[in-house]
């Protein structure tokens, strides 16, 4: 995105003749500094990659190989047991793992899409409409992030018990539709990315009392919506792994 003016300068300079060669040589130090940064980036990549690499390698070892593997903890064992392990996983308890995987996928999709839709609508409302109580509502929203979720678990369970929804998919999907971070991100983005002039123009073109609600704001909302979708996705993944059930 940043169009670097350096190539323009280089072109102008090399066009200047023999002196241009010496000038071109002066741009080399800039490349050398990048080597240090690249090394730093490579080290960072290795650090962040390490546990995932270990996981992949450990997945290919048998139980004994984990302790006394020939390649050490970070390299493959001589006995490649990946397919045995996968088979054991798929047949454990009559294939319940595949069911769990399907459940998680369902929760992530439903929760992710639902939370994104709600967050986009709410963020758009906060950013573009000046209704009464807007500031107060937003403060309440931010304050809700500060409450530890452990306080909510038992009352939510009691609530679902009274509704008869425990032990159903709704017990996980409905709470995960709530994404205050998503609303905040969308509000910030919509405020900056969708100029009021665009909405005024659409209103002039006759899009009704409600103001334009589609398609141009929707199209502009695309990129942050997908980022918004990522957060509920991982949130849904985490939620299903321990707390709500």
């Amino acid at each position, binding site marked *: 995105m940043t169009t670097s003016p350096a190539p323009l300068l280089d072109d102008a300079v090399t066009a200047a003749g023999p002196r241009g060669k010496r000038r071109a040589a002066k741009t080399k130090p*800039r490349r050398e500094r990048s080597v240090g940064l690249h090394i730093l980036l490579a080290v960072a990549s290795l650090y962040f990659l390490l546990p995932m690499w270990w996981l992949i390698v450990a997945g290919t070892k048998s139980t004994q190989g984990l302790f006394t593997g020939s390649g050490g903890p970070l390299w493959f064992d001589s006995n490649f047991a990946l397919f045995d392990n996968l088979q054991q996983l798929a047949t454990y308890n009559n294939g319940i793992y595949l069911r769990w995987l399907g459940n998680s996928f369902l929760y992530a999709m439903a929760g992710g899409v639902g939370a994104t839709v709600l967050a986009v*609508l709410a963020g758009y409302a906060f950013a573009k409409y000046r209704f009464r109580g807007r500031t107060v509502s937003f403060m309440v929203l931010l304050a809700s992030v500060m409450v530890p979720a*452990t306080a909510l678990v038992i009352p939510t369970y009691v609530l679902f018990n009274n509704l008869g929804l425990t032990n159903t998919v709704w017990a996980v999907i409905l709470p995960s539709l709530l994404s205050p971070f998503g609303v905040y991100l969308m509000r910030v983005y919509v405020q900056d990315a969708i100029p009021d002039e665009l909405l005024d123009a659409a209103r002039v073109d006759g899009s009704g009392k409600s103001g334009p609600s589609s398609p141009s704001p929707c199209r502009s909302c695309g990129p942050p919506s997908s980022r918004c979708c990522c957060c509920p996705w991982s949130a849904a993944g985490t939620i299903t792994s321990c707390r709500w059930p």
Partner: protein
Amino acid sequence: MSASTALETPARPPATPKRGTTLERKTARFGWVFLAPFAVVFLVFLVLPLGYAFWMSLHTNTLAGGEQFAGLANYTRAFTDERFLSGLTRVGGFALVFVPLQIGLALVFALILDDVRTRLSRFTRLMIFAPYAIPGVIGALMWGFLYSPSFGPLVGFFDFLNVQAPDLLSRDSIFWSLTNIVTWQWTGYYMIIIYASLQSIDPSIYEAARIDGATRLQTALQIKIPIVTSSLVLTGVFALIGTLQFFTEPQVLAPLAGNAIDAAYTPNLYAYNLAFSYQQFNYASAISFALGLMVFLASIIFLIATRRKSGLN
């Protein structure tokens, strides 16, 4: 973030008062329609359970007396409970280390990745963000295995250096072991937020800086950082809130770490154990609300301290 609009917006005619014409008011009310779905879910799944939890925290439930209204007795007990207070001190210590470390690293990586545009930088960006996509429980488990003397690579590494391997899950080193896990997990998330802010800066500013003779480092320190300060403050608040509610990693590592992590290691963990191990729901609710109050106070203090920088006043 809105530097470009600030440079380009022509002078507008004087704005009409906030809720002036009837049309404007009617249009503004339509905002509630957009907000309604989220508001419903918010009320039912947050405000309602929270209200019930608060009501529970005002009562005590004993075998002898049954359910009794106890006013603020649970809260008095909470704020004089030594386990709660030591847990609070501990998460305060965590916050002092985690927040600057994570935000600092996120800022450094975001600046580097904004500057260097090669395949390696794109790969690194993905690698730094990937741990956020991994659920916290899994991440903590993986690191638990990496720390273990039987499975992990660290024993081999220290043997190579002929040095006694430190026990990373012992009481002395559990603090830094947890720091490592949390940094690994969350730096990418904050980095992406800061990176997105950096991407939205108008490039003509960089050209102007280059003409004025600024080096890359000067551009980074004196131009980019001030522009993204509001993002930094916001990620700082989120990091602070998250750290004060520290729960997942101690919970997952507790079986592996022996006696280094006790049941009241952090206040959130204490509330969880009170509710699910000791069945003291009322006191657990009071602890949760007391923790929420502390988080609220800490966030207010943080925002007041940074109000000039964040543009939130």
